[in-house]
């Protein structure tokens, strides 16, 4: 077990910079998820930690030692691949013990470790099967078993659940979390699925265009995104963004969306945004769950308005409603009993206590 540190790590392919100077500290026992759209450099970063890609610049440290030029086999890491990468000609047991056999571990020790890992992953019955006789989920368990028996300093997962169907993915997600709770090995996990990132991670690293946009716990990222990218990437349905500006009227700071629609800001928000120039082009960011049907009791900071719904999506426990807010398509979440209907009117309310204000040009959350 060890901590992992990245210092100004850069990866260049010819003249394209895939990773542009990343700084990241991963503590011992921590489960860190790298998440971002495809091409954001998350897999490249993982492969650099594994030693499968050379780093163009910077330092990578595992357990305090710089491993820039250390070959993968000497980094004491284990990796789980998206397509499992099981050795097709070996049985499950042989697959799991391959690394140990190469290092000439005593037979008894190998057997003990394989048995223990198989028990932990519930694949004891499959131990003598070949990979082609296994289902996708079972193969992924074997791939994890192969990583566990090595008892490495760091686990690296490269989109391990992407090849599984939706139901199995949820199940394996829980398995991975359970395994981590048992073995407590430092883990770096790459995925493009923000739900996977949120549910698994101690801390999430959101990447975009080869840079880190934000590092934080799942809740921090969700409630206090630093940039528009993070705000829109984390959460489903995504956060709504509506062009707006600030305006002083009747001695109070108002958020003006259009000529017709303006909301007075609650005191805490007003104090926070008061210093901003009134001329700036801004974006009003609001999550769907903070745009809901108006309640009969007025609550401080919750402002009602009238909307004409375009489409409704009943999800059972809630109904998603889509409408245009002065030219911008937005999504809200209402109670299934709120009477939302396709094309129908609905009195909505926006919770300004949970709003975000973004600089339209820079994308920074203010």
């Amino acid at each position, binding site marked *: 077990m060890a901590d992992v540190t990245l210092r100004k790590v850069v990866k260049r392919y010819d003249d394209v910079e895939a990773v542009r100077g990343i700084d990241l500290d991963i503590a011992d026992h921590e489960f860190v998820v790298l998440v971002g759209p495809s091409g954001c450099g998350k897999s490249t970063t993982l492969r650099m930690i594994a030693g499968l890609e050379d780093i163009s610049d910077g330092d990578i440290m595992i357990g305090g030692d710089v491993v820039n030029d250390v070959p993968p086999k000497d980094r004491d890491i284990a*990796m789980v691949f998206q*397509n499992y*990468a099981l*050795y097709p*000609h070996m049985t499950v047991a042989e697959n799991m013990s391959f*690394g140990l056999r*190469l290092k000439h571990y005593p037979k008894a020790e190998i057997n003990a470790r394989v048995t223990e890992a198989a028990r932990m992953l519930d694949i004891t019955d499959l131990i003598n099967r070949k990979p*082609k006789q296994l289902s996708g989920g079972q193969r992924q368990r074997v791939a994890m078993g192969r990583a566990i028996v090595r008892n490495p300093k760091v686990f690296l997962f490269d989109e391990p659940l992407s090849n599984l169907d939706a139901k199995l993915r949820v199940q394996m997600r829980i398995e991975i979390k359970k395994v981590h709770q048992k073995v407590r090995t430092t883990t770096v996990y790459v995925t493009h699925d923000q739900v996977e990132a949120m549910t698994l991670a101690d801390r999430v690293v959101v990447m975009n265009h080869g840079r880190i946009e934000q590092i934080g716990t799942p809740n921090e990222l969700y409630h206090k995104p630093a940039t528009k990218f993070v705000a829109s990437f984390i959460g489903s349905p995504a956060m709504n963004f509506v062009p707006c500006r600030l305006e002083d009227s009747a001695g109070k700071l108002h958020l003006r969306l259009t000529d017709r629609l303006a909301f007075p800001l609650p005191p805490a928000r007003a104090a926070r945004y008061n210093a901003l120039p009134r001329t700036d082009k801004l974006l009003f960011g609001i999550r769907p769950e903070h745009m809901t049907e108006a309640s009969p009791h007025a609550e401080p900071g919750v402002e009602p308005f009238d909307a004409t719904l375009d489409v409704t999506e009943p999800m059972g426990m809630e109904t998603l409603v889509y409408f245009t807010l002065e030219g911008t398509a937005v999504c809200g979440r209402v109670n299934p009993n709120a009477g939302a209907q396709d094309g129908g009117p609905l009195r909505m309310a926006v919770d300004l206590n949970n709003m975000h204000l973004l600089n339209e040009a820079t994308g920074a959350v203010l």
Partner: protein
Amino acid sequence: MSTVTIDKAGPTRKVKYGSMSRDRAWALRWSYFFLTLFAIFSLVPPIYMLITSLKSSAEISAATNPWWVFHPTLSNYIELLTSNQFLRFFWNSAWVSIIVVTITMLISVPAAFALSRMKFWGSATLATGVFLTYLVPDSLLFIPLFKMFAVIGDWTGIQLINKWYVLLFIYPTLTVPFCTWIMIGYFASIPKELDEAAIIDGASWFQTLTRIFIPVALPGLIAATIFAFTVSWAQYLYPLVFTTSTDQLVLPVGIITTLIKGDVFNWGQIMTGALLGAAPPLIIYAFLMDYYIAGLTAGATKG
């Protein structure tokens, strides 16, 4: 739901275009027809050889039905199999083929591994170059090769021409490029994650090759082995040019040069020799084909 749709679509389709199974049945009939035609076409020569090999010289030269044996005899077989000369050809052929297959595999498997997996400067060009070498016809190469060995003989005093083992140097120029090319293709079909997993598990390049790549690409390896064996076993032009003494000849050349005396063709023994010569590749095919096909269909590296 889905069954209902199929039931509805079924009858209308049947009327217009005929069902899938009927199309399939016709496809099968046609393929059997052509396969039978092809089988007859390719089996006629060996059957003719077999019939002739069972005849005495007198019966062959008599103008009887060439497709029937009236007085079957094994004398051709007995004569050949007891003749030291024929056994000598046979052993020369066997040694040449076995050693050439070994040399070829020892060179082309690591070469293919390097060319398909270790990205180094010029590796792609080299891989294409290997294939281009194979495109040069053998019949153009034997003159410069002969000259080369003559020059080597002059310079070093090591006379290789007219020794059966000169073929050990020559055949690999034919087999190595093609086998390397086949193996590059097979190795390229192995997902990259597999060697990455092996490297992370602590395998060296050599261990990755021997413990992962060779077992996984076994069907390809067998295909390449069969190819190399067939090429060296059946080669005619090169041994004809490079070996002349009777005790240095390999089977195909030996049969022709010793059993045709002037204008006297010993057809019975020529046919017997050819049949016996065809036996080893046939036996090897029969044994390896099972592995070959099993390996092809099992190739479950993904999914």
